[in-house]
């Protein structure tokens, strides 16, 4: 099948790549652009570890073809996050400080979801945080520390609601 030439704007940089129509966006990001921070997990839209931002909204890169990305769209991956003075983004800092990761495989997806979510709702309640994380699965942490990290990242009191 003929490859198509597409333009992907990722983390502020333009890339022209040739892809087969069946190339998933997550494959293009990882294998064509070498940005391996975005993970492949369930590949069926459930686990959320391939979460990236498309024009600021969190989406799952395993359920989208690379050819579907419009030329004027902006993709942001975990590699595109950084703090004001370089280094870690405040959300990443909070995940580290609150121990919101163990094996780390799901973490890029969680952080990208957190970014989109807090951009839209800067002071979420705990219930809203838990709902916002509905499309991401973590098998290590039990979510308590992730919720705490998001509370901290949003400048709110941390509930320390350990069961």
């Amino acid at each position, binding site marked *: *099948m003929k490859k*198509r030439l597409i333009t992907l704007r990722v983390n502020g940089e333009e890339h022209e790549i040739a892809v*087969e*129509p*069946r190339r*998933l966006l997550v494959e293009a990001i990882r294998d064509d652009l070498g940005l391996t921070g975005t993970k492949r997990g369930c*590949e*069926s*839209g*459930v686990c*959320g570890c391939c*979460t990236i931002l*498309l024009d600021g*909204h*969190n*989406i*799952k890169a395993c*359920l*989208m*073809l690379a*050819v*579907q990305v*419009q030329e004027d769209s902006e993709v942001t991956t975990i590699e595109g996050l950084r703090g004001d003075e370089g280094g870690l983004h405040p959300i990443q800092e909070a995940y580290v400080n609150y121990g919101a990761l163990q094996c780390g495989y799901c973490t890029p997806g969680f952080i990208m*979801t957190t970014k989109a*979510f807090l951009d839209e709702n800067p002071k979420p309640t705990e219930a809203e945080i838990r*709902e*916002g994380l*509905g*499309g991401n*699965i973590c098998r290590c942490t039990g979510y308590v520390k992730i919720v705490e990290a998001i509370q901290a990242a949003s400048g709110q009191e941390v509930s320390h609601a350990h069961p």
Partner: protein
Amino acid sequence: MRNFEWLEPTSVAEAGRMVTENGEGAKIMASGTSLLLLMRQRIFSPTHVVSLGAVDGLDYIRFDGADLRIGARTKHRSIEHDPEIAAQFPMIAEMARRVANPQIRNMATIGGNLVHNDPASDPPACFLAMDATVAAVREDQEREIPLEELFVDFYETSLEPGEVLTEIRIPALSADSVGVYTRFTTTPAEDRPLLGVGMVLTLDKDGTCTDARISLGASTPIPVRARAAEEALKGQPATEEVFAKAGLAASEEITPLDDFRGSADYRREIIKVIVRRTAMRALERARG
């Protein structure tokens, strides 16, 4: 995933022609969130995928006081956040914010949801209880299809080859009616419902149900109207006892699915409870 030819029409008419020209193997794709799952598993391997991504004018929400019109490429997210839907159609808003998960709501479209006709979904049952119709367009011909006639069987609709679903039309509820949608999942981590109940109740001043439309989703191959349950409500006082009878009628009038989300017996029990609770919520909503 098997490879395919990628086609990007810029109009609905062109999209329809591309499907007709390329035969049985051609398939229209909106966002692809559902279709890609089937293609990945090679349950379905189209030879040609006709993307609606470059077709403008299918992403809108309009309410003229009589009908709500939602363009087929409108994302669940837009429906979830639309202020007019929240104010005028709380039943749709409460349904839309529970579809799948946040990322999918940012990607998936309402038209794609309806034509995919996967039983384990919320919008079909919600809109069925609201007496919605859809517009199907081929060339310059438009056909209006009541939702009940759109759904044929698992993943099968009455759309003809080359027809493109362009719009969903939902009539406003009458002033004396209220609408409620309840989704039931077996665990909070589940993205897909075991059961969805849509209900539009019409009540007179004395608290009598003068009319009722009840739909059941995700527990039968296609969403269905629970007409025996509706009859059990009509002309009756809006009380929990009457609602329980309607629940019982609903659970007896269908043959529930028996699958990994729940056995048929379990579904019957849940239908009884959720129909009753949905009616109680409708009553609360009517009382404001």
